[in-house]
């Protein structure tokens, strides 16, 4: 709508006609207090805190429901308004206890702030405050009735925002109370959004309540380690006896890719870092055959010596680089994944590197190679006018995507089309839904082209289309869907995968046949010059590595943050004495087979970047510290060091070989210039000073992987920056391996090994299964 000009507190402001006054003021830096107003949710006008004086209007108006029009004049602060707000607070405090010193929200309570500002410390009301005992509604949610100020934020958040409708308001007037749908408990998705929205301490979180005071924590914004959406999560951390402890995870500043949202896993599933089962000492198998705690020096020496011995032994059956296998992780950072494959390819001399493939990103990127601007960011899912969701179940596996789709439909009237072999919850927001048999996804494009059904006609009538598809699509089927979309035009794609950095693992070349950026090892291009001794033959996949072990041809196996013994079902007897090195957080079926185990740091205890399933790169910041563990990055650098490798060839840190050699001494054409230094200078960057600085590797990734041309300013400011798979070279060889994809399908409360070690997620999971069992019994 056209802009209008109006006056607030003597300032001329401009905003589109129809904008809510409260929004227009906030944008202009004029704060109007409000309890019930929450951007994006329906208007309530219940709290009367946002009252302002409008010229020529007899009574004070609520800024949250007043829309701006040409020539209006408002006053937002005056003695009259302050008095009105003070009176409102007195009413709100009628039953609200002033026990801020023992309230969980004390220090971050909007009512406390307002009482401080407007000074309603004394009240005209002399009646005794009514007290009610607090109630536990679920393992996640506690309710303290007298603290509730009936702003209805939680009710609207749960209903409109989450489409769960588990909270309601019962009774009337002074007896009004927030009520859960189960009578005395909540049957819901346990997302904790009601706690997040609560402006006071009425709804509190089971995982955080009464643990600490808000001002005693430091707050670090990082990326959630659980699913492929990559929400920004703010960790409240405190010093503890063995490092820095995470006390709380929430969505404190709401500045991330996830806006207002955070799910149960992000909010409650951080406690795995404090699990008593965490590995905190390196372990080496002793002469008696038992894993024994030891020092880092010893463990690194044992592992390094053995790896070197196997690599250099060219005579035996289990010698040379080809006798070494490397398995990477879906949860480590891009820098660690990049370093791992570089370590495998240049130090161990092997292309036998793979990871637990849960999503066929290779086919996806190959299908999009050469087509720029066709990948959708996660943010676009909240603004695209028309979305076609084929397969997948975002509500369970991609909660943020589901939130974005719901919000988009609610606020922008986006048209959502759902194709699925099951009934999924998002159909409630869909304009139209189409069922297919479980094996019928290959026919979807034909179905749309034929335009027989109303569904197909509606989809084909859309001008632009955002196609989001699930792990049902792999290999040729995926490629044909993308080809169909590219042919149709005005289409963008998103591919839903598991785990916090599965996309990064594929992008960074944890693959036997593809280098970082999906460059085939046989046509290594720039990598041929960068990686000395890069083997040109494609290596073994995870399955082939274990096949080799069965045949007694595997000398050593390096596993980083993965559990192939469980996921791939490896029988220890079939390893035939291969030397196994494992980096992990917890003892697993794989560490049980290991000869050397290094205790690794979790994603919350390291720095780097991760790429979500939409290809958005975000900065991971170290929040916590667990004594005894080291980031995988540091462990790999130290392992290389223990093998006698010049670490500078792995991690480009410090000044280059010849100081300031830009190729002058020997000539740039000789190919011996310090390319990294040249690139850094060209991009105005300083060389990193430490070999343990992952950002040194980020520099190299940016230099060598065309898809990772990152907007650094935004990245370091904590924003998501997109990658461009369209820059991936169109590859001559089609990578096989789609048959190796095994989706993890983690739900709302499961998260692989991490979930198993999160006591809180286990509790929520149990609570939910009990609910389901009860419902089924009814």
């Amino acid at each position: 709508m056209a802009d209008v000009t109006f006056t607030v507190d003597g300032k001329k402001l401009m905003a589109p006609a129809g904008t809510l006054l409260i929004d227009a003021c906030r944008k202009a830096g004029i704060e109007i207090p409000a309890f019930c107003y929450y951007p994006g949710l329906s208007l309530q006008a219940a709290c009367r805190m946002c009252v302002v004086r409008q010229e020529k209007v007899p009574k004070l108006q609520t800024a949250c429901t007043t829309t701006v029009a040409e020539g209006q004049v408002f006053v937002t602060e005056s003695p009259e308004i302050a008095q009105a707000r003070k009176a409102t607070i007195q009413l709100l405090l009628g039953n609200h206890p002033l026990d801020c010193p023992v309230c969980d929200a004390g220090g971050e309570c909007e009512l406390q702030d307002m009482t401080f500002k407007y000074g309603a410390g004394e009240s005209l009301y002399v009646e005794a405050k009514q007290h009610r005992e607090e109630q536990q509604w679920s393992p996640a949610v506690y309710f303290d009735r007298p603290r509730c100020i009936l702003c209805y934020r939680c009710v609207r958040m749960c209903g409109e925002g989450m489409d769960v409708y588990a909270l309601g308001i019962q009774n009337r007037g002074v007896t009004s109370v927030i009520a859960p749908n189960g009578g005395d408990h909540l049957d819901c998705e346990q997302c904790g959004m009601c706690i997040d929205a609560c402006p006071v301490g009425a709804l509190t979180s089971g995982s955080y309540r009464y643990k600490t005071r808000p001002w005693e924590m430091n707050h670090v914004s990082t990326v959630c380690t659980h699913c492929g959406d990559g929400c920004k999560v703010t960790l409240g951390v405190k010093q503890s006896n063995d490092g820095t402890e995470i006390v709380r995870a929430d969505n404190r500043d709401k500045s991330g890719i996830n806006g207002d949202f955070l799910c149960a896993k992000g909010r409650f599933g951080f406690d795995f870092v404090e699990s008593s089962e965490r590995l905190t000492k390196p372990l080496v198998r002793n002469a008696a055959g038992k894993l024994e705690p030891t020092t880092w020096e010893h463990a690194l020496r044992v592992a390094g010596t053995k790896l070197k011995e196997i690599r250099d032994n060219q005579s035996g059956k289990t010698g040379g680089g080809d006798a070494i296998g490397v398995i990477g992780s879906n949860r480590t950072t891009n820098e660690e994944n990049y370093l791992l494959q570089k370590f495998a390819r240049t130090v161990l001399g092997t292309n036998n590197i793979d990871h637990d493939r849960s999503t066929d990103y290779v086919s996806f990127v190959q299908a999009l190679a050469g087509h720029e601007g066709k990948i959708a960011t996660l943010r676009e899912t909240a603004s695209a006018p028309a979305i076609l969701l084929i397969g997948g179940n975002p509500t369970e596996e991609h909660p943020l995507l589901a939130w974005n789709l719901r919000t988009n439909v609610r606020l922008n009237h986006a048209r959502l089309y759902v194709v699925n072999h099951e009934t999924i919850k998002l159909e409630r927001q869909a304009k139209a839904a189409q069922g297919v048999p479980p094996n019928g996804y290959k026919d979807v494009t034909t179905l749309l082209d034929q335009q027989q059904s109303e569904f197909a006609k509606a989809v084909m009538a859309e001008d632009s289309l955002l196609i989001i598809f699930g792990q049902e699509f792999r290999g040729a089927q995926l490629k044909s869907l993308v080809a169909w979309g590219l042919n149709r035009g005005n289409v963008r794609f998103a591919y839903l995968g598991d785990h916090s950095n599965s996309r990064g693992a594929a992008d960074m070349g944890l693959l036997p046949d593809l280098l970082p950026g999906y460059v085939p090892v046989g046509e290594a291009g720039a990598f041929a010059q960068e990686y000395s001794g890069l083997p040109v033959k494609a290596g073994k996949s995870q399955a082939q590595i274990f096949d080799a072990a069965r045949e007694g041809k595997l000398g050593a196996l390096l596993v980083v943050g993965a559990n192939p013994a469980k996921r791939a079902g490896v029988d220890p007897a079939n390893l035939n004495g291969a030397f196994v090195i494992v980096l992990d957080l917890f003892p697993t079926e794989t560490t049980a087979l290991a000869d050397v185990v290094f205790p690794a740091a979790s994603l919350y205890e390291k720095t780097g970047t991760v790429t979500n399933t939409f290809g958005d790169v975000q900065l991971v910041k170290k929040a916590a510290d667990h004594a005894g563990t080291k980031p995988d990055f540091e462990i790999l650098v130290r392992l290389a060091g223990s093998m006698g490798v010049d670490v500078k060839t792995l991690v480009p840190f410090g000044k280059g070989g010849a100081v300031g050699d830009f190729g002058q001494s020997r000539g740039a054409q000789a190919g011996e210039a310090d390319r990294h230094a040249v690139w850094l200078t060209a991009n105005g960057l300083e060389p990193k000073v430490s070999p343990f600085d992952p950002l040194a590797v980020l520099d190299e990734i940016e230099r060598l992987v065309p898809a990772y041309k990152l907007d650094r300013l935004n990245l370091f400011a904590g924003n998501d920056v997109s990658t461009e798979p369209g820059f991936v070279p169109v590859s001559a060889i089609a990578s096989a391996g789609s048959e190796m994809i095994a989706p993890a399908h983690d739900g709302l409360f499961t998260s692989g090994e991490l979930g198993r070690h999160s006591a809180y997620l286990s509790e929520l999971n149990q609570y939910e299964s009990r609910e389901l069992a009860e419902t089924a019994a009814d």
Partner: protein
Amino acid sequence: MSPKESNTETMSIFSPQLSARFDVLVAKYPVKRSALIPMLLYAQDEIGYLSDAVIAEVAERIGITQLDVRNVATYYSMLRFKPAGKFNIQVCTNISCMLRGAYELYERFQDELHIGHKGVTSDGVFSLEEVECIGVCCWAPAIQVNYAFHDELTPNDVPKIISEYKSKANGSVKNA
């Protein structure tokens, strides 16, 4: 928890007449949930109060959650969640009745029945309620027993009213 359409006819807890009436009501308004309050009132008249089963069936018929039904129902003091007596005596104590002795009347009912506000006699015949204006100010003080009015009362009229209804109750028991 998605509200599903299902065949409520076969398992309705309401009489066929009321079920038929509900079918009409639900289709009558542009938005189904507009039928909620009349449905609750009719259901209360037939069942006596809003039991969990009533709430569940009404929710299902309209296609909203039970929580939604409770949110609305708890707002209204004329909807009740516990059984009332066979005869629910509602004594108005608003201004006209109050000026003409409603409280004396109300106290007499309490003394005779030995129950207070919202109480039910042990035999389940009577319940007592103090209510807001029932619209009979010109013949105050007035009471309403179920849907029947008694007006221009004095406390001395109370025993007669009670015995009148008691015999009705006994009669119905004999007939039944």
